């Protein structure tokens, strides 16, 4: 150890101007994304478990519980898009858990004492989780194909469906980040996990609203997850849940509007929460 390399030279650039500010925000966020990827590289088993869980759910519903509630014809053609949707929604838990764990660590203090973009920690996390979701979705689609599920509407529609699924994931992700900022402690995540399940099942993901009492069916049709599942089924050319309510017939519109609205609300709330850690 020597003191020779100590100097007070001011060599850290502070962002000036909107252009470079945005540039630094992107660079900082990418650095935070890389941090998450480095974590995964060190814990491959955990990553694999995360990928296997939805696959198990899919196999369970298609072979064990299968049969479908009020679905006529090919249940797998109905089930697979529903399970893809549900996997995207359950991503909320994973995101929430990792954010609460992260917030308890001393390294967050260091990030906050640095001249980096204040939203980068959260944005970096969201990009990393989206990358994980792309991998997860690919695995789910491959397994769906392997058990006999097919899409029929061409490549553009296929991409459209994937896009809608990832859009839902992105919205759930920001809800997850915001809930994590509000809850603060990993213990409280459990409470949210218990609530996520009924919300996920209160959708047409694995059962048709027609099989439910009419008041419940109406709630189910308006669930953002149902909108995505219905729109995705249409784009894949798979049978839908049917129904002639406004929500059921405008599923594609809702499948875009719901997630966008959720992102517009929860993204700024989450970033503001992070900035307010200094209060």
């Amino acid at each position, binding site marked *: *150890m*020597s*003191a020779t*390399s*100590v*100097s*007070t*030279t*001011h*060599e*850290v*650039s*502070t*962002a000036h101007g909107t252009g470079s500010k945005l540039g*630094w925000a992107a*660079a*900082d966020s990418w*650095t935070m994304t*890389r*941090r998450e990827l*480095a*974590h995964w590289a*060190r*814990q491959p088993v955990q990553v694999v478990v995360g990928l296997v869980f939805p696959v198990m759910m899919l196999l369970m519903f298609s072979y064990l519980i299968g049969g479908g509630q009020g679905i006529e014809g090919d249940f797998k053609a109905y089930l697979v898009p529903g399970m893809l949707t549900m996997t995207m929604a359950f991503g909320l838990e994973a995101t929430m858990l990792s954010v609460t764990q992260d917030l308890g*660590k*001393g*390294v967050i*203090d*260091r*990030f*906050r*004492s*640095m*001249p*980096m973009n204040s939203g*980068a920690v959260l944005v970096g996390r969201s990009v990393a989780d989206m990358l994980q979701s792309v991998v997860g979705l690919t695995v789910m689609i491959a397994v769906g194909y392997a058990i006999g599920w097919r899409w029929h509407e061409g490549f553009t529609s296929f991409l459209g469906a994937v896009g809608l699924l990832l859009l839902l994931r992105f919205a759930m992700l920001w809800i997850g980040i915001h809930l994590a900022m509000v809850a603060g402690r990993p213990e409280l995540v459990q409470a949210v996990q218990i609530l996520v399940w009924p919300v996920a099942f209160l959708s047409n993901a694995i059962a048709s609203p027609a099989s439910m009492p009419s008041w419940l069916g109406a709630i189910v049709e308006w669930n953002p997850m149902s909108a995505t599942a219905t729109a995705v089924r249409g784009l894949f050319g798979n049978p839908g849940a049917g129904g002639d309510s406004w929500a059921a017939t405008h599923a594609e519109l809702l499948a875009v509007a719901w997630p966008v609205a959720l992102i517009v609300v929860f993204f700024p709330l989450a970033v503001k929460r992070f900035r307010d*850690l*200094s*209060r």
Partner: protein
Amino acid sequence: MTDHDLAIVVEGLRKKYGDKQALDGLDLTVRAGTVQGILGPNGAGKTTAVRIMSTLLRPEEGRVEVAGIDVRTRADEVRSRIGLLGQNAAVDEELSGRQNLEMFGRLYHLGARRAGARADELLARFGLADTGKKAIKQYSGGMRRRLDLAASLISRPQVLFLDEPTTGLDPRGRTEVWSAVRSLVGGGTTVLLTTQYLEEADQLADQIAVINHGKVIAEGTADELKTKTGGDRIDVVLHDTGQLARAASLLPGEVRMDEDRRMVSASISDRMAALTETVRALEAAGIEAEDIAVRRPTLDEVFMHLTKEDAA
């Protein structure tokens, strides 16, 4: 002294947590290039003060300038000029030392190449060059602290905050951190160091501010603080515990008895006179002394004295 020479200016700083007034009108000035010690018991407000100065917490009232910049209105500019070593390791424990330093370098906007070079340079300087891919959670306490310190130096900060840098370390780890801090001093970096250990402040700090209940109760160099509170002391160790009380009656001023160590101790003003008078008085009384020593008060005694005074 012009404002230009001051690395830190704190005036009338207040912060409340619920009902507790963590900082109650803290005033502090630190000259550039010096080591300022902040000494105080648990809950005195040391960490709160550091968190405000390092932009992690917003003050409620008062002015705080670091490197001449207001922390409240221009936090980002302050952040690019400071380094922080918090009480808990502020590094990513899942990653290696190099991964951490490189990541922080990128976040200081050094660019990928310079961030990597700076990481290697700091690892070498803190004796961590051979840690390879090992995750930090497998480091010893001393190593972790040194890496943490390396991380707070990435941007070559003008002002470095060290919040209880050796709390929880074994003696070896403490020595490691002390020598690392010493190597920084003299390079022009201003260091603000909080500690509960008087010895640490004595060893490392040029100036010491003693704080209690959120405000400064005494300030000065270690020597000045010692002089301020009762000056020198004389210690007399006896053969026979039974003679302690009689020996105590012969000594001037406020006398303390310590039966376990068979010792009486008194504050004195004139070192030589006190020594000769004590030897003479003991001889005349027929009390046999095992050891007699004149010494400066320890910072522990100063600290006890100051905090007692503050409570009264």
